[in-house]
């Protein structure tokens, strides 16, 4: 991977420093935190999709030796505040334990505390809850229809959000267009499902008034939200960010777990831990992802140029708000994908149902939206008999048109989409791929080529919050870095959040080393706790290369400036005559006159008499970095700059389907990827490969399916299928680098790469394969069983079987 500019460490194929501790089993995950006298929580869950809690009898549980406490929703609701949602829906309170009414099967009703987890589980079975079953609703369309079952009676409807945006002359463009096309696409309820479940350990110190929290968390403003729930000042909550998180991809937001154990440790006086088991994680852990129905309509011409688009997105968020409704908002920042669609109408609807609550999932709603856009692009090509790559090329923003303002108010920073496609096709001949498809078809298989092109909005801003809720005028989503050089001359950098495998310690060391021209391996990276940290909004929204990298870059430059200033003063030369190189500073006019790194460290730490006037002693700098391009509220007509950077990916795959089984096999997978300047190639490659694997799961395997009685059918890894090494094909990544003008090194985000386009590419490939049978499939995941049945029925009707 090449990068512009002469970087010494950035973009070079260096090892990832975090890996050393993981390969020897010395990661420090939350379940490894052993505080003395810690007690364990197990949960009592509601077996019905909707039920009034009539009574809870805890006597048998409490009579068991080793059982210490049973907490119910009434006590907890009396002592804590509902969890923050960011929406203006005060009558849809979300609480850690159901209070009066439980609203989905698996919702937590009571928490049992015991000496061991096994004892707590035994006792949970002895808690007798009397329920009165209530009517329930599972389907989003039914929940939306007036007069039906209400999930939250006091709210008066099941609608949390229903906003229609019109950007540009949609009606006029549709009226003037010679061709129109409608499509319904469904994204099934899946999630990120990390191998480590969510866990949290909390310990209250009543003599210091501090709640220590260790958690498997990836969440903005986590300490503040715990504090709010527990009615404590945030300065009484100390979240330890040096806990390794065993995968998250957005979803590790156990705020309800954390308020629950925070309350328990304060109530009971000893440390309390809750580590979800897999069933708790999948059912009551509130970690599901989008379940979204799209109705897309486009107006296009005979050349396949898409002029205007109407999109209705209906999200089934489950029983409570979580972060899910906002996942309808982020895609607004890339609502036209990489295309020059001139006008858009977007209706975003979020309804509550009696299903598990959702939280943030990789891409924050972008991957489902991309399926809708990319299925539409293929159908336009198909309707005109045009090649799907050619149609995309015709619609794509050209390199010379950047920066490019899309109708919804976001300006795309940079890109060279046509060049990326050219590179992919130079690597793998399209004609040969088509010939291979034809060969597979001749062998009796169904075979199709899948194309998807999409963007990865990156740099994680929160502009969707004020856009969807005007009472929430958030316009910053900053991140920070602190750097100090100690008396020995060693550099220590501090970050202020957790990581879940993204390699942030490597990122920090690389960027700081690049700026300071020092060995990255000599730079210590540590994590503050929330009481001695600078602001961070955590690694969400594909943002850390941009935001943590940006903060580190600026902090390192402050340090470099300070060292140069000290040296110039000590050398008695004007600042502009001093040059910093490899940590030393020399006089441009007399290069042998210099101050070494060690000299400068000594002056700063010991020799105030040699310091320039007005400069602080020591070498400690920090930088709080605002999101580039951020800071503005949306306009009255709903336009806003969403994210600062837009990475591009182009998927081209070949899928073969055994017609008798309906089993799709990905025969070839190529992806062209442009995320600007790459900080660490190993990390970016891994993220893209992992994103594609995750996308294969969402497209073909994974679904939190419910039966008609409101019971979650996927309650284990035998029902919820994660891709294994057999399901993930060899993937070839073709790199391109279009630097972002909005970032310090030209970097863009990559944490969601692969996942944002893989489901669309797979859906398009399968549709290409089954198109000769006169059928199509637009419901994800595309399961083997459904595909097999559809193929058999189509063949029967054509007399082909």
């Amino acid at each position, binding site marked *: 991977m090449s990068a512009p500019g002469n970087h010494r460490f950035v973009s070079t194929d260096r*090892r*990832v420093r*975090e*890996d*050393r*501790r*993981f*390969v*020897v*089993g*010395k*990661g420090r*995950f939350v*379940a*490894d935190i052993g505080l003395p006298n810690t007690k364990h929580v197990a949960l009592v869950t509601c077996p019905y999709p909707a039920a009034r809690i009539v009574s809870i009898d805890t006597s048998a549980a409490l009579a068991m030796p080793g059982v210490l406490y049973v907490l119910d929703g009434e006590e907890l609701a009396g002592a804590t505040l509902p969890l923050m949602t960011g929406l203006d829906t005060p009558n849809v309170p979300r609480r850690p334990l159901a209070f009066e009414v439980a609203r989905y099967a698996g919702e937590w009703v009571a928490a049992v505390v015991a000496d061991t987890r*096994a004892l707590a589980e035994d006792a949970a079975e002895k808690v007798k809850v009397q329920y009165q079953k209530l009517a329930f609703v599972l389907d989003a369309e039914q929940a939306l229809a007036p007069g039906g079952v209400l999930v939250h009676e006091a709210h008066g409807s099941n609608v949390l959000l229903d906003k229609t945006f019109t950007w540009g002359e949609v009606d006029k463009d549709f009226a003037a267009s010679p061709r129109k096309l409608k499509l319904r696409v469904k994204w099934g309820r899946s999630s*990120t*499902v*990390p*191998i*480590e*479940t969510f866990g949290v350990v909390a310990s209250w110190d009543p003599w210091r008034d501090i709640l220590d929290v260790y958690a498997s968390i990836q969440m903005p403003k986590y300490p503040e939200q715990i504090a709010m729930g527990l009615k404590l000042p945030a300065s009484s909550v100390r979240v330890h960010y040096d806990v*390794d*998180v*065993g*995968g*998250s*991809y957005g979803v590790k937001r156990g705020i309800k777990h954390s308020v629950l154990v925070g309350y328990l440790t304060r109530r009971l006086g000893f440390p309390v831990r809750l*580590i979800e*088991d*897999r069933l708790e994680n999948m059912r009551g852990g509130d970690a599901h992802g989008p379940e979204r129905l799209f109705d897309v309509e486009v107006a296009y011409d005979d050349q396949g140029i898409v002029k205007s688009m109407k999109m209705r997105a209906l999200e089934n968020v489950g029983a409570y708000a979580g972060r899910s409704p906002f996942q309808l908002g982020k895609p607004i920042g890339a609502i036209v994908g990489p295309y020059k669609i001139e006008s858009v109408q977007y209706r975003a609807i979020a309804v509550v149902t009696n299903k598990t609550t959702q939280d943030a999932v990789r891409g924050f709603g972008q991957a489902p939206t991309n399926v809708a856009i990319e299925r539409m692009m293929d159908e336009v090509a198909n309707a005109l008999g045009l090649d799907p790559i050619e149609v995309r090329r015709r619609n794509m923003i050209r390199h010379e048109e950047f920066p490019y303002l899309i109708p919804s108010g976001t300006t795309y920073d940079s890109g060279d989409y046509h060049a990326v496609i050219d590179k992919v096709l130079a690597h793998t001949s399209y004609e040969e791929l088509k010939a291979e498809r034809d060969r597979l078809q001749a062998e009796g298989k169904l075979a199709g080529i899948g194309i998807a092109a999409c963007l990865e909005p990156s740099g994680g801003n929160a502009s969707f919050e004020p856009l969807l809720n005007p009472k929430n005028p958030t316009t910053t989503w900053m991140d920070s870095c602190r750097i100090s050089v100690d008396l020995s001359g060693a550099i220590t950098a501090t970050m202020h959040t957790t990581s*879940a*495998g*993204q*390699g942030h310690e490597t990122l920090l060391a690389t960027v700081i080393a690049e700026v300071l021209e020092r060995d990255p391996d000599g730079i210590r990276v540590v994590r503050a706790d929330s009481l001695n940290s600078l602001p961070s909004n955590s690694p969400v929204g594909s943002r850390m290369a941009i935001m943590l990298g940006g903060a580190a870059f600026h902090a390192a430059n402050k340090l470099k400036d300070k060292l140069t200033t000290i040296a110039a003063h000590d050398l008695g030369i004007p600042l502009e005559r001093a040059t910093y190189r490899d940590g030393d500073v020399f006089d441009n006019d007399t290069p042998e006159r210099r101050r070494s790194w060690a000299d400068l460290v000594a002056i700063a730490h010991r020799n105030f008499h040699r310091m320039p006037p007005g400069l602080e002693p020591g070498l400690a700098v920090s930088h709080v970095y605002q999101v580039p391009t951020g800071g503005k509220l949306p306009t009255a007509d709903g336009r806003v700059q969403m994210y600062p950077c837009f990475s591009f990916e182009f998927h081209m795959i070949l899928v073969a389907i055994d017609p008798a089984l309906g089993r799709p096999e990905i025969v070839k997978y190529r992806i062209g990827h442009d995320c600007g300047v790459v900080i660490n190639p*190993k*990390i970016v*490659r*891994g*993220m893209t*490969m*992992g*994103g*594609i*694997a*995750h996308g294969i799961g969402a497209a073909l395997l994974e679904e939190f399916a419910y039966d008609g009685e409101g019971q979650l059918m996927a309650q*284990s*890894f*035998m029902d919820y299928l*994660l*891709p*294994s*090494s*057999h399901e*993930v094909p*060899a*993937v070839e990544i073709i790199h391109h680098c279009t630097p972002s003008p909005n970032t310090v090194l030209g970097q863009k985000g990559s944490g969601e790469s*692969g996942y944002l386009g893989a489901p669309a590419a797979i859906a398009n490939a399968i549709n290409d394969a089954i198109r000769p049978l006169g059928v199509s499939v637009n419901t994800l995941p595309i399961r083997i069983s459904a595909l097999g049945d559809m193929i058999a029925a189509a063949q029967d009707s054509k007399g082909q079987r």
Partner: protein
Amino acid sequence: MRIELDINGAKREVEVEPRTTLLDCLRDNLALTGAHAGCEHGVCGACTVLFDGVAVRSCLMFAVQAQGSKIVTIEGVTPGPGELSPVQDAFCETHGMQCGYCTPAMILTAHALLADNPDPTREEIVEAISGNICRCTGYAQIVEAIALAAERLRGTNRPSEL
């Protein structure tokens, strides 16, 4: 009940309930926290240990069943403080991980594979790790790590030093 286990070449006495899984025993009684709980129903493989040289799920067996067998955990294949085994080093070289949660199990599975088959094909590596779910990487850099480790080990001509 009191049992004696052979863990990483040392005899360890532990007091467990009959229902205690080997995984819980390793983590809670012996502080060998490199074995991780992922699903606790035998699918994800994050709890993998070597049981008489075979990669098995420690969540699917009771600690008492491990008596009389040799158990090796990730702590047992690490050569010493600050030192990595060739397999561990290869995982670092290719970045065959991200969050690190499935990694110890993946490495033990790789050790078991390479002990049996010093020159595995890509397909054999894919097959060997197919019982270990990694959610981060899409497996490519894991497969490359194992292939690299195999190549380096063949080069050393000392396969016993896995």
